[in-house]
């Protein structure tokens, strides 16, 4: 009798325990179901609008029905992710080492773009209001402005760090506010000096064309593939720098324990300065690419700050791998939600970026690859 009661009690507590586990894992299950549903939808279920539309049709059909458009969307996602990565890797490098959230990163991006733009116009000549055609631009007339912009922005970032941030190290919020102030001033000054209209940098004629990819008959823009290649190069260079050189070793050690590294006799201030230079230079270089890929104008700075933030929040701040994964996720979600949402709901694609962010934060507050400071 008492045994039976005890058994029942046991069973009851087991049920309660499993229910608690279910509650705890519930969100993960929901997330998994959502991801699985999204995959099935994109790969098999999505239909385009044929003769009778119900509003539930998507812009492109599913991967099975329409491999051509699916492949293009996939390439769009991956190449956009490349540019996100170039910009966000600079952000994450600075943050990882110095715990500085550089809210002026977007402004640096835009300023880098403008520097490259002005230099290119200067090199090519014929400064017309309509911009340049890619056929007028040879490869060095794109590359030299982009590199000069990167160096200029690197120096600007270094200057900002030395003048405003070096003496209040560790006051993270104050540093973030200082960079916000600089971003406000820069944004307003850029409108005053470069105008409030949108302009773009011309790609060199050499790569501004479409190439045939021998897959599903896709012809794809070579410039976008070049962005992806650049991103892979930047990523590889950063990885080699951080993993295989002495400076990289110091930086990685600094990410884990700044005090200990400087106690060991390493000039950590020099390392900080270097990291700030490289991180800002990546924003400037990204600005040159972004100005060719999209355009430059007021508000672009805020957008790219946002992209960088989303990427590093998802990936985990201070992690290079995290920046790569975060960029890829952001690129995939924004490209696919723009064309695979039912036609009446396309406007809500931004919500998916939010959902992605929320999903990651709910399970890993420090991001996918983040580690506590």
């Amino acid at each position, binding site marked *: 009798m008492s045994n039976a009661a005890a058994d029942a009690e046991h069973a009851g507590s087991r049920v309660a325990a499993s229910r608690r586990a279910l509650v705890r894992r519930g969100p993960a299950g929901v997330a998994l179901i959502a991801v699985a549903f999204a995959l099935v939808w994109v790969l098999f279920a999505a239909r385009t609008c044929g003769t009778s539309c119900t509003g539930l049709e998507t812009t492109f059909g599913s991967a099975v029905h329409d491999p051509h458009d699916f492949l293009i969307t996939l390439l769009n996602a991956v190449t956009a992710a490349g540019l996100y990565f170039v910009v966000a890797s600079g952000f994450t490098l600075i943050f990882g080492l110095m*715990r500085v*959230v550089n809210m002026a990163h977007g402004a640096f991006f835009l300023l880098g773009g403008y520097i490259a733009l002005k230099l290119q116009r200067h090199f090519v000549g014929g400064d017309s209001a309509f911009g340049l055609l890619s056929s007028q631009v040879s490869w060095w007339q794109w590359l030299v402005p982009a590199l000069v912009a990167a160096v200029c922005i690197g120096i600007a970032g270094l200057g900002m760090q030395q003048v*405003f941030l070096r003496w209040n190290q560790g*006051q*993270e*919020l*104050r540093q*973030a*506010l*200082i960079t*916000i*102030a*600089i971003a*406000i*001033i820069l*944004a*307003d*000054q850029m*409108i*005053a*000096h470069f105008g409030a209209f949108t302009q773009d940098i011309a790609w060199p004629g050499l790569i501004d064309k479409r190439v045939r990819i021998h897959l599903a008959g896709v012809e794809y823009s070579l410039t976008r593939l070049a962005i992806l290649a650049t991103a892979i190069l930047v990523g590889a260079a950063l990885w080699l720098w951080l993993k295989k050189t002495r400076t990289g070793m110091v930086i990685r050690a600094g990410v884990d324990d700044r005090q200990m590294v400087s106690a060991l006799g390493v000039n950590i201030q020099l390392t900080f300065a270097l990291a700030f230079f490289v991180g800002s230079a990546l924003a400037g270089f990204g600005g040159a690419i972004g100005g060719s890929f999209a355009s430059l104008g007021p508000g672009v700075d*805020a957008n790219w700050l*946002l992209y960088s*933030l*989303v990427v590093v*929040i998802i990936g985990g*701040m201070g992690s290079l791998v995290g920046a790569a994964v975060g960029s890829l996720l952001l690129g995939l979600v924004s490209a696919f939600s723009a064309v695979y949402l039912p036609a009446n709901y396309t*406007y*809500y694609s*931004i*919500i998916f*970026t*939010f959902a992605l*962010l*929320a999903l990651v*934060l*709910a399970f890993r*507050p*420090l991001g996918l690859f983040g580690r506590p400071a």
Partner: protein
Amino acid sequence: MTGFGSGFQQWLERSIGVAAIFFVAAAPLLAPTPIMSNYFISTILTQTFFLGIAAASLIFLSAYGGMVSLAQISIFGIAGFALGNAVTNGNTKGLNLGWSPWWGIVVGLAVATAVAFLFGALASRSAGIYFLMITLTFAVIANVFFGADLSLSGFGGISGIQAPSWIGEVSAHPYRLYYAAFVVAVVVYVVIRYLVRTPFGLTLQGIRDDPLRMSSLGYNVPLHRTMAFGFAGFIAALGGVLFVWWNGHIDPASINIGAAIDLLVICVIGGLYRLEGAWLGALAFVVIQNYVRTDYLPVVGGTFHSLIGAIFLLIILLSPGGLMGIWGAMLGRVAPADRATSATGIPGEQGGQPTEGASR
């Protein structure tokens, strides 16, 4: 901290506060005078009150919860959009539900507070700069959402939102909304001051100082942060309701990233660690915005934003506590009475200046 009797400071601040309240309450009676024009009252002071209310919600979070949020302007705007959708019934964007103004208030506050709870829950496990970044993304997403969603707002926003009849047209009865905003501001101030002394408020301050310890003492840290964020959202929503009544129109540009930064600027100028700073910062911001806005700055070029950015930068560099911090530091330097008895400061430095003047 300031090195002199806080009793005197408290007395002085209370006197100034009471004087300010009397002055503000009497201002419309004195108008129109050259300094107290109707424009000053209906535009500058009314705007100061509702922006100050939104700023107070941010300062509450930052001063007592250690959370600097950039999403307060979104909550503010969401209240405005919800109210706009509920009360309009004409040729404007949105749902045009045509409900009574009372329901408009209820819907605006409820929707905004609910969204604030959601945002708070998502961000509740972060603090410090992480919190700042996450709330910034919330702010941008809210802005883009209302820009994209044609059924609720769309790019052009909702116009022709009327204040309830007991407030009437702002152009016809400028003082009604002025007094409404004034009363709400005072109530918000009192309620926040009360709340931070309740067990909830004290726990929140404990979490601000040491989340790990509070968590090991058995307090639910994310829950408290979420509750605080929801409460702050309600405050911001009050500001948003007053804003749409005052403005009659709301569009996504009113809650864009620039607006979010503007609100942060208000709080930093006023002082992120003192609640009074909310209205002080709002007043400074609105005055600069109204009198500098259209002019191009000499030499460097640029507009109002370059100037406000430079002021913002200077304040963070020189006095992270903002104007209220400067005020505190000033009192610390001037007040002679309690210095000798103060245990916190260095005696030599403290005695120095005032007695010098007295002995001569």
